């Protein structure tokens, strides 16, 4: 039972990460946009959905929990709002940074994500500062006993993943997707063909941000508690880059496989390491994961740049 529960919650997280990896694939894999601020969209999505679905704290609780608003809306509205707000933030970031050279875009987005986290941490009036928000509503939680709830949630996130996967695949195979890939390959050429490069990049950035925002919301309702510490660059950004790079940049199936493999390495290695190492070492042992993930990233980039799948040949449908 314990093992099965572990497996199910592992599957839920891997599915949520698959959604993020697809979001990144839209931006980086197909358009060549270096978004190193995934953690920022992750946080925006999670907090938006939390504030949309939670009630405003009342009574004694109001003394402990501060939040700017609490709309008590349904889960689905929360997730879509998370995507929308994240997309708007993506639009603003795009207006600031899309005209910059690609390397600068990476640094800017990294900094913006870090600033977003610091903002949530400091501005207690907005979402309770470092303590974060707890008790996020979980959809359909009363149809099964609590110990089986993760099965239901796995179905919910899987449904989101399928819809997002099909949507992105269709977009990428359309003429619109072909322009994105043209921009990735040769921006000047695409511009010479009369394509508005900045506008297409913006659409890709915003679509990716929308997907990531929904991913953040799905994570928030699964964890049922969020705090700014979760959205650090390591857990929120770089692990997703490793997933996409491993699975195959420019391939949505690869993105999903990469997410599952990396998340398996991340969560199972702790499990195994803890069984092997002596008690006195147990506080340090989890950091072996940093080395594993780091090495994985370096080895793929240097030796196997295509990842597991690589980009497939695409034939556009007219």
């Amino acid at each position: 039972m314990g093992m099965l529960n572990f497996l199910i919650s592992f599957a839920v997280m891997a599915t949520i990460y698959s959604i993020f990896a697809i979001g990144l694939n839209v931006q980086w894999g197909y358009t060549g946009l270096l978004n190193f601020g995934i953690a920022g969209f992750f946080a925006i999505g999670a907090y938006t959905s939390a504030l949309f679905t939670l009630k405003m704290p009342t009574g004694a609780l109001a003394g402990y929990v501060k939040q700017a608003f609490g709309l008590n809306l349904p889960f689905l509205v929360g997730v879509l709002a998370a995507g929308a707000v994240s997309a708007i933030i993506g639009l603003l970031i795009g207006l600031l940074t899309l005209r910059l050279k690609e390397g600068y875009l990476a640094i800017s987005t990294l900094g913006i994500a870090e600033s977003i986290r610091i903002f949530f941490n400091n501005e207690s009036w907005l979402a309770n500062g470092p303590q974060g928000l707890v008790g996020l509503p979980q959809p359909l939680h009363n149809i099964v006993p609590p110990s089986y709830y993760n099965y239901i949630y796995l179905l919910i996130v899987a449904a989101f993943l399928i819809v997002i996967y099909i949507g992105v695949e269709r977009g990428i195979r359309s003429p619109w997707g072909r322009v994105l890939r043209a921009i990735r390959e040769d921006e000047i050429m695409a511009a010479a063909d009369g394509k508005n490069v900045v506008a297409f990049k913006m659409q890709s950035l915003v679509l990716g941000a929308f997907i990531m925002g929904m991913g953040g919301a799905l994570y928030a309702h699964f964890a049922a508690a969020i705090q700014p510490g979760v959205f650090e660059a390591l857990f929120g950004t770089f692990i997703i880059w490793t997933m996409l790079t491993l699975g195959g940049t420019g391939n949505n199936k690869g993105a999903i496989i990469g997410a599952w493999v990396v998340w398996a390495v991340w969560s199972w290695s702790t499990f195994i390491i803890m069984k092997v190492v002596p008690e006195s070492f147990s506080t340090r042992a989890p950091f072996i994961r940093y080395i594993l993930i780091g090495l994985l990233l370096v080895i793929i980039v240097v030796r196997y740049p295509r990842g597991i799948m690589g980009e497939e040949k695409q034939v556009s449908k007219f």
Partner: protein
Amino acid sequence: MLELTIYGIVLGSIIALGSVGLTLIWGITDLFNCAHGDQITVGAYSAFIFTSLFSKLNILQGKVGPFSFNWGIVIAFIPAIIISIALAILIDRWVYKPLRKAGVHSITGFIASIGVAWVLRGLIYIIWGADFHFYTQGLRPTIVFSNGVKFRVDEIFIVIVSWLSVALVYLFLNKTKKGKALRALADNHNLARISGINTENMLIWAWGIAGLLIAIAGVLYGIETQLRPEMGWIFLMPLFAAVILGGQGSITGALVGGLILGLAQQLSTAWLEPSYKPAVAFIIMILVLIIRPRGILGRRTT
């Protein structure tokens, strides 16, 4: 306000020192090294191996002049520098050289450097744990002026060593044959090569200089604050900002950028929560990118 300005200059000096190595590598190899911060952490901890060894052996424990630290730290600079230079060169050989050989885009190197950063941080966590460490225990002497402005005596040392190291590197780059070759390489890689410069050999020099500056910055940063595994990663954010502010490959730019950021971060605490310091660095950086994308002293117009 004067006090914050002094802190700003101290912080700015360390940022300037840290960012010179970063901008040097960026200028010469077109690689934005994300592991630079964690290499600084390694530099700081390498010195810590020796300071704790010295205190176990009970040698070199005499205090240096008016400063809070002992001779052990001064001596520990040397092995820390050697370790840091060796590490920088090895990383280049193992990770970035194959990428250069494959002729892939510099962005790939940037992604690989993130992996390197993780590996280094993981090693630090495993060897030393997440706890804070200090080179020396005890109070740190401060100087108090008659008008109430105070600062730590150590900070004089930090500022002097920072600028001295930067000045030496600057002289090296401008006055020696190797230095000139390096600058030629940064200017135009292919032209440098057909002029008979052994580019791979020069890159070892570039990473060596970066490693040297990284170690000094790490130890000074460790003296100024404390050692913790995330120190370099957190420090990397203002370094990025300083380097972008200064312009790709511009050493003078990085120095000016470093000072501006140090001052801006410290002075901002007069109005903002101190935890907003990294955000201040980024807002300045983004403003510069929008108004003047090549940085204040950038030389490239593309």
